[in-house]
């Protein structure tokens, strides 16, 4: 679980014996590397083209967005697009603030509650534990979209409809986060707790002083996942938020387009770029841990 280098292990799987490999000269080897590398890099360029197009269009005047043939380097570069989306009529800044507010509570809440619950499910024995865990298991496969209709009705009754708390609360208490943390704590030795108990440590001390420090890499991974999910969620606010003052970033992006995508290509792409930046920074800085969390929430 904590072996974050697992994806970077050098490849040993090529079907060549050691003797065979020795015979091969450096030049042949390089050629072989590029024989696979070149098509993959071409594919990667194709893959990145939509994002390159986004960046390019974000610096164009609306009249230039659809000029044929396409100009990759905008001339003149319309830097004012960014100023407009940040401080103009449909400024992104309030939505930016809302997104940060929602993400902060969701990440903190999920980390605290999932870590405690995951620890208890893994390391403590108590009556009814396995029954509760079975209910958690059954809930885990329920897609969030199935819950949108009842959550809408429910939050309406609670007076939380059209409030940021309607986005925050379900995200603070998650079954998936609890699973991820439980999987980690299950792999930790029980001897730590037994020894600490004999030394007279309380249960909270054993959790917070002994096991919690060991869990920080997994908590970091869960935190990143929770942040990205929260930041990108579109369907939940689409259904539960109506006042533009409560828009999160994905909703506020739609201010710059309509069903035909006709309103303003330059502004829409500048706004998209701005909204992607935070998640891109988090992802690029912590991508190993992120990918590790992805693979571990999925299988194993």
């Amino acid at each position, binding site marked *: 679980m904590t072996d974050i280098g697992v994806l970077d292990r050098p490849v040993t799987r090529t079907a060549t014996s050691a003797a065979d490999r020795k015979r091969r000269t450096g030049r042949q080897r390089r050629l072989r590397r590029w024989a696979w590398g070149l098509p993959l890099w071409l594919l990667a360029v194709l893959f990145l083209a939509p994002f390159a197009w986004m960046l390019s269009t974000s610096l164009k005047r609306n009249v230039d967005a659809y000029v044929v043939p396409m100009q990759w380097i905008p001339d003149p570069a319309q830097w004012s697009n960014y100023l407009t989306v940040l401080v103009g009529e449909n400024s992104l800044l309030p939505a930016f603030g809302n997104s940060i507010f929602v993400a902060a509570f969701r990440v903190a809440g999920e980390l605290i509650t999932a870590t405690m619950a995951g620890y208890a499910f893994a390391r403590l024995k108590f009556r009814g534990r396995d029954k509760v865990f079975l209910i958690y298991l059954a809930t885990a496969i329920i897609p969030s979209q199935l819950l949108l209709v009842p959550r809408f009705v429910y939050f309406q009754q609670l007076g939380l409809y059209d409030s940021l708390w309607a986005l925050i609360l379900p995200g603070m208490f998650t079954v998936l986060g609890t699973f991820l943390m439980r999987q980690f704590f299950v792999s930790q030795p029980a001897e730590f707790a037994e*020894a600490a108990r004999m030394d007279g440590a309380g249960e909270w001390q054993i959790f917070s002083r002994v096991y919690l*420090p060991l869990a920080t890499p997994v908590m970091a991974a869960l935190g990143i996942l929770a942040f990205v999910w929260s930041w990108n969620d579109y369907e939940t606010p689409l259904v539960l938020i109506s006042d533009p003052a409560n828009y999160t970033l994905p909703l506020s992006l739609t201010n710059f387009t309509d069903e035909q*995508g006709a309103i303003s290509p330059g502004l829409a792409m500048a706004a998209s770029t701005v909204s*992607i930046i935070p998640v891109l920074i988090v992802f690029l800085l912590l991508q190993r841990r992120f990918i590790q969390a992805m693979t571990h929430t999925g299988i194993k």
Partner: protein
Amino acid sequence: MTATTVAHEVSVAKPGRQRRADVSQPKGWVGWMFIAPNLIGVVAFTLIPLISVVALSMSKWNLVSGLGGIRFVGLDNFAGVLTDPGFWNATLRTVIYAGLSVPLTVLLGLGLAMALNRDIPGRAALRVIFFLPYVVTVVAIGMIWLMLMNPSAGLVNQALRGLGLEQVPGWFASSHWGLPALIVIAIWSGVGYTATIYLSALQDAPTHLYEAAAMDGAGAWTRFRTITWPSVLPTTVFLLVTLFIGASQGFGLIALITAGGPGDATTVVSYYMYQNGFQFYRFGYAAAIGMVTFVGVLILTLLTWRAQRGRSLHD
């Protein structure tokens, strides 16, 4: 720092002492205290909505009449859904959309992962690039592709014309090309994810079997069929199941790009549910659609799981 020191001292202190049965576990209520914060929230915001979706699906209710106007109608909504041509048309479109996009995303992801698992220049960077669309919000992705696929001046059709194609697709403006366009976007944004999951499975694949197979002179296809494929089969099943559930439930991209159109050409079943609930305010009916779809997907999941049982290398 101090905390890790405690852990260290504690583990060192252990061997010298006698183990007593009554200290090996705390009192029962302690565990409940630890799960309480999460459990209360899960009950309040997931379990209660989950139970009410069942209740809602058996009632007729709209927003205007308030909670007092809720009427129990038994299985009427389900009968209505199952005899609703709109529902079955939407289901057919979902089957086409998910049935093409999911297997393609999974298979292309496996191919990509096998290529990325080789010794190639810039592997780490390549993995990040292919994964990138997965961390971008569906709204940005939708807006980018909507403009890229603009029928007259979009970059995609410019490229197709450049390749000599005279009849270029109308994409979202055409009732024939709307679904294929959504499938293209789904593959582009999902293949990096499936490749990433496969990569970690491939690195657990049994190296000694490949060496043995190579010594026996087995060709690339034989090695793939007899070693790689069985060893990644559990991953394949996992990806198929989770992606099918995702593809049958998600409606964000469609709500954003096509609103189900033109006409109802891209109204898949999840969007049909969204329309009934949040545009026509037929909450009971929408809840019934959600439940019927979910049960359908669940049955498919079980069948998939049964079909692969016993064929994996790790079983």
